[in-house]
């Protein structure tokens, strides 16, 4: 039985995930949960790059942040409905990914990381200077609007179900991509690039496509987040955000299906509930980064999967 190509263990995990999505808003603050789902989506995209093609991007914030700006701008100033706004956010991420990916995939390793960082810095600069982003103020007071022009999203729970739907769709899509024939080739490239090339695969195009997809995920995530909070700001496009999403993937487990979600949950929960300790959040994040690299390279889900001898 392979629903969406899930293994048995993954099917169970997916079931638990669905139950949690339905039950947790009864107990937890819905805005917090929406934030976790947005960042999960962002991390899922980043995981496609890091986990399945082995490229570390230090510029994912560019796609996340610009997706947020475009969605916010489209909904607020152009008056489009929220679903169109989010699609536009995703397209922005994909479009940026297309251009930047084309430039960046020519290099690997550290040079790839540095090019993505540099390009993202330019996007940040653009966000500071361009009039429509509102500079330091950001785009504020973005209305959530009416879904398909019909259902008002002003109530937090209405918005919650929309975010949950987008999140589940994104999650299934990411999983589907990895388990398609296309995904198999991508993994082959990660494992042994020269061999994949000698087998006749045009590895650059595969890398490029994954890069674009990661950008699209980030764009959708950023766009959705801007609607949840009604604001799009420089924070989301600045480079520490790129570091944060890498941390989520690393912590959850690089190359795992559920890892990015767990990573996002832990990081966001930490920021929300430890924030009263001031800069200790930074200290703890730093310590987790170090622990992950030194003793814990599989991440939470990777480690659990390793113990259970299951791919999660």
């Amino acid at each position, binding site marked *: 039985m392979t629903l969406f190509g899930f293994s048995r263990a993954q099917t169970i995990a997916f079931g638990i995930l669905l139950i949690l999505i339905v039950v947790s808003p009864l107990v937890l603050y819905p805005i917090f949960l929406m934030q976790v789902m947005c960042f999960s989506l962002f991390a899922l995209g980043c995981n496609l790059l890091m986990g399945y093609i082995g490229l570390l991007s230090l510029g994912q914030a560019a796609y996340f942040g610009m997706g947020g700006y475009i969605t916010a701008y489209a909904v607020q100033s152009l008056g489009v409905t929220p679903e169109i706004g989010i699609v536009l956010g995703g397209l922005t991420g994909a479009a940026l990914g297309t251009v930047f990916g084309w430039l960046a995939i020519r290099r690997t390793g550290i040079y790839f990381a540095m090019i993505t960082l540099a390009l993202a810095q330019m996007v940040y600069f653009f966000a*500071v200077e361009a009039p429509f982003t509102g*500079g330091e103020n950001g785009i*504020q007071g973005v209305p959530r609007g009416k879904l398909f022009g019909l259902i008002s999203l002003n109530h937090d729970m209405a918005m919650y179900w929309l975010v949950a739907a987008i999140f589940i769709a994104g999650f299934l899509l990411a999983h589907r991509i990895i388990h398609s024939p296309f995904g198999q080739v991508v993994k082959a490239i990660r494992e042994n690039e020269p061999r994949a090339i000698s087998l006749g695969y045009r590895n650059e195009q595969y890398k490029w496509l994954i890069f674009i997809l990661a950008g699209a995920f980030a764009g959708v995530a950023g766009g959705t987040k801007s609607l949840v909070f*009604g*604001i799009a*700001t420089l*924070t989301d496009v600045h480079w520490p955000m790129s570091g944060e999403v890498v941390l989520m993937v690393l912590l959850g487990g690089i190359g795992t299906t559920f890892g990015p979600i767990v990573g996002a949950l832990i990081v966001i929960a930490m920021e929300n509930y430890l924030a009263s300790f*001031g800069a200790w959040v930074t200290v703890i994040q730093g310590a987790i980064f170090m622990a992950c690299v030194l003793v814990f390279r599989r991440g939470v889900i990777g480690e659990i999967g390793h113990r259970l001898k299951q791919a999660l």
Partner: protein
Amino acid sequence: MTISRRSLIGTATAVAVAETLPRVPARAATPSLTIGVCSDFSGPYQDVGGNTSVACVDQAIAEFTASHPGMSVQVLKGDHQNKPDVGAEIARRWFDQSVDLLIDVPNSAVALAIAGVAKDKDKVFINSNAATSELTNKFCNADTIHWTYDTYMLAHSTGGAMVKSGGKKWFFITADYAFGHLLRDQTEAVVKAAGGTVVGDVDYPFPSTTDFSSYLVQAQSSGADVLGLANAGKDTVNSIKQAHQFGLTKTGIKLAGLLIFLNDVNGIGLDIAQGLILTESFYWNMNDNTRAFTKRVLPRTPNNYPSMGHAGCYSGTLHFLKAVNEMGIANAKKSGAGIVEQMKKMPTDDDAFGKRSIRVDGRFMCPAFLFQVKKPGESKIPWDYYNLLATTPAEEAFMPLSEETCALIKA
């Protein structure tokens, strides 16, 4: 996001103690309010806001509940980290948890974001520490009151005085974001209206700039009489220190710090800051009342004297409590706009600002004081830094209603 609960003073402590005892029915009888202080607790504005703002709110509550023992007030504090998204998130969460008043909020970008949330949730927002005059102009709303000062007042008081004393040619160093631009544009308007000119202007990247030398040298070679610093906090402190290093004042250029607080002067030190012209609407060593207030609040904040933003937190909290008391807590909790309306009806009266009023657009009307920083020899006691040069009455210090686009004015 920061939510730290602090139980306070007499009555609040009594409630806390009562809560630990089983089955005390008295609890429901004490109606309670919650005030959230959202400020910069770790960044460049922590000295002008931060814990001293909390101390001033605590002080106002202590004084009010001493004479109104029936009221219990809780205080939360949250660090907005100078990010509008973080600030909006704190505000949303607090208001959802039934915070009745959100106060302080240095940083204009964050303040505007929070004003929007306050309007959505119909809860009271008193801004005491942000500069932008847009809070009572384009983005005014029925739930927001802007206390203490704004960019218009700074531009008119400091800018006007500098031109009057002969500073005709201006060079601006501007933080490249909305607050910096607004402060520069309003000052520029004042300078030009008074017959001055602007000979140069640089926008520097905010907040990543620590080295202002390049801009200072440009100012020096521009032939300007006055260097206008359209920035705040750490940036202002750095640019003034570096202007001193590059000998700007030796070449006869006067510095106009458009937004400087007492705490910044303390950070710069009198040997460098002496002679600076600046504007505040409160100075602790102004008269017997301000000194009395300062003496009362100092035990709560022994290392940092209150400047105007802090005093605004005290004054705003006190007036809020008076208004709520007037309406009755249950009645007041129905609508933030209702409380604000009541606050606008009543005149304010406290030791920090004296007897004042709140205008229809949410503007707290207080006079602007033009100060000059003392020479090291003139300063007799700790934090004795200012000489009063001039006073601008409130009606001239703030933007006239006729020039504003605030929707509340017509209504």
